[in-house]
């Protein structure tokens, strides 16, 4: 689950990370008021679950409270389209009003999970404010790493190594180690999946501040992160994906094509997308029905697919394990009978209870394209459109 910048900063500040003076506003009036409270020049920052907000016009400087109100008026209600949002963009319902800072240096700091090491890793670089993946690819020596060993927890010497490595010596050394330790603690205690402060800035008046912040929580840990769960902003999630969530389907992602897919298992679902592509088509979505073992769950999933105006054909590709193919078959029959998937429908069943599943389809009398292998199924779905 993603947090907004202002939420990430609130969380980090609770752990002692210094952030710029700022407050959140949902109306131009509140924005002007917040700017007046801060005094001097402020930055008005669109709050939406995407980076690259500046380029999209979502971040602007205001030199007065009045101007802050005017800018907030422009930004609030925007649909922010960036290279990370897809063409539909994301709505902006709030703006963060922050003191404008005079920047001396910009640094990079983040925490992520390193699956190979099976540990979180703190990543730091003197090259902040830039595309860190680019830096990592071009100049790997510019990237510092410290792992958090669960046997001991993050240690002071690691924070010091990073602080010295970032060139934060002298009076900045202690604030820097403290900031890094606070970030690590926030990540561990919040079940973070990614926490990024980019940039950490050294201001001209010698302060160290988290100028921007991203924080994502491990979706699997939300059950024990109730207070963070309350910060969820559903306006930042695609409508269809929310619908899928409400139907209990965790893994639904809207894509740009026109073949709606219902598959079990993430690997098979990805491969189905690959097979569709190889057959010359494009999937309208990724949907992993998982082990959902009731016809109702299948019907809910197919309703989401069937009502997607982009979908011109439906492909059901199931290899039963824990999921039983007869239950899936029943769900498809029910959805067809309820008119939820009027589109041409290709179905391929294999695995557990496949005979029972196929028998149900045989008996249903419904017009369904049946496929044996899943490459054939993908081809059939593409053919059904063209």
């Amino acid at each position, binding site marked *: 689950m993603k947090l907004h910048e202002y939420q990430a900063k609130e969380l980090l500040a609770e752990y002692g990370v210094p952030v710029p003076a700022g407050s959140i506003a949902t109306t131009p009036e509140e924005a002007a008021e917040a700017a007046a409270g801060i005094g001097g020049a402020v930055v008005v920052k669109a709050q939406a679950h995407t980076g690259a907000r500046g380029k999209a016009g979502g971040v602007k400087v205001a030199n007065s409270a009045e101007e802050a109100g005017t800018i907030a008026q422009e930004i609030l209600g925007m649909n922010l389209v960036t290279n990370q949002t897809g063409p539909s963009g994301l709505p902006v319902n709030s703006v963060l009003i922050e003191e404008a800072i005079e920047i001396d240096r910009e640094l990079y700091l983040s925490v992520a999970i390193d699956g190979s090491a*099976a540990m979180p890793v703190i990543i730091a670089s003197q090259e902040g404010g830039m595309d860190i993946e680019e830096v990592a690819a071009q100049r790997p020596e510019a990237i510092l790493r410290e792992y958090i060993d669960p046997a001991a927890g993050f240690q002071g010497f690691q924070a010091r190594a990073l602080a010295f490595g970032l060139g934060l010596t002298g009076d900045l050394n202690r604030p820097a180690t403290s900031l890094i330790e606070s970030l690590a603690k926030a990540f561990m205690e919040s079940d973070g999946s990614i926490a990024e402060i980019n940039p950490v800035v050294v201001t001209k008046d010698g302060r160290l501040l988290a100028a921007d912040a991203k924080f994502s929580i491990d*979706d699997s840990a939300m059950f024990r992160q109730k207070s963070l769960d309350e910060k969820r902003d559903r306006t930042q999630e695609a409508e269809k994906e929310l619908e899928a969530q409400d139907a209990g389907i965790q893994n639904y992602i809207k894509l740009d094509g026109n073949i709606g897919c219902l598959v079990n298992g993430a690997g*098979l679902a*990805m491969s189905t997308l690959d097979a569709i592509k190889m057959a010359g088509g494009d999937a309208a979505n990724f949907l992993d029905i998982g082990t959902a073992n009731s016809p109702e769950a299948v019907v809910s999933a197919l309703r989401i697919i069937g009502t997607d105006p982009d979908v011109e054909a439906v492909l059901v590709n199931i290899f039963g394990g824990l999921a039983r193919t007869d239950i899936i078959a029943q769900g498809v029959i029910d959805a067809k009978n309820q008119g939820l998937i009027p589109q041409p429908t290709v179905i391929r069943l294999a695995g*557990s209870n496949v005979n029972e599943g196929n028998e149900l389809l045989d008996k249903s009398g419904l017009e369904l394209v049946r496929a044996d292998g899943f490459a054939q199924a993908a081809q059939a779905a593409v053919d059904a459109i063209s």
Partner: protein
Amino acid sequence: MSLLLDENSKVVIQGFGSAGQREAIICRDYGTSVVAGVTPGKGGQEIEGFPIRNTVQEAVDEFNANVSLIFVPAPFAADAILEAVGAQIPVIICITENIPVLDMMRVKRVLTTSDSILIGPNCPGVINVGAHARAGIMPVDVYTEGNVGVISRSGTLVYEAVDQLTKVGVGQSGSIGVGGDPIIGTNQAQALALLEDDPNTAAVVLIGEIGGTAEQEAAEFIKTMSKPVVAFIAGATAPPGRRMGHAGAIIAGAAGTAEAKQSALREAGAHVVENPGDIGSTMLNVLKNQGLA
């Protein structure tokens, strides 16, 4: 136990709810010795003919359980794995998905000083076809006995690969589903090492996914292998930056792309399949060319 299970495997099932019970029955019907279920508080009961115990240790003490198959719900699954480790179960297979990543980090740290092997979590389990030993959730009727081993991060793609192999007349020694989570007990390279050592396995199908660097690590091991490997990477057409079910599938840097993985595997000598429908036929050709089929 190169294939982790054999005729002497005695399986205890942790989390004996509906899925656990159903799979226990399928395992037993397949010919596997399922000796007990563990559900705290239900110790002493018998369910579907299986004795239930409160702790894994009791199942070890009473029934010599040496394999644990875990269906415990995600919030308690790490505790269940550690219970099996504490009872010194040599092979622990965790089916549960959505275990918090930081829980698995702690489990892995404990495993660094344990002799237990963990498979999964978020995996379909392990099957040894010749030994009729199944500790997992895979459909059994797609398997036929033979000499190809299958390794995969994705469960359903194990079944898919096995099904294709069976349909082209190539039997399997077994399969190991290593699991789709960012932190797993046994990675692809380690699973390859098990099959390289397995006398009943002559060739290996390796199914990877976009994200992470596990396939590159596997490629390094493939360079040292005597047995041919057919490999497929799922997600070649996935849009970058979206999480598609498996957290491991987040494309993080160039190493995570299908192209990078395919090329590492090709360089290591693996036969890389681009179309997921071609796994079975490619393996058949490889076996024929090497005089193995």
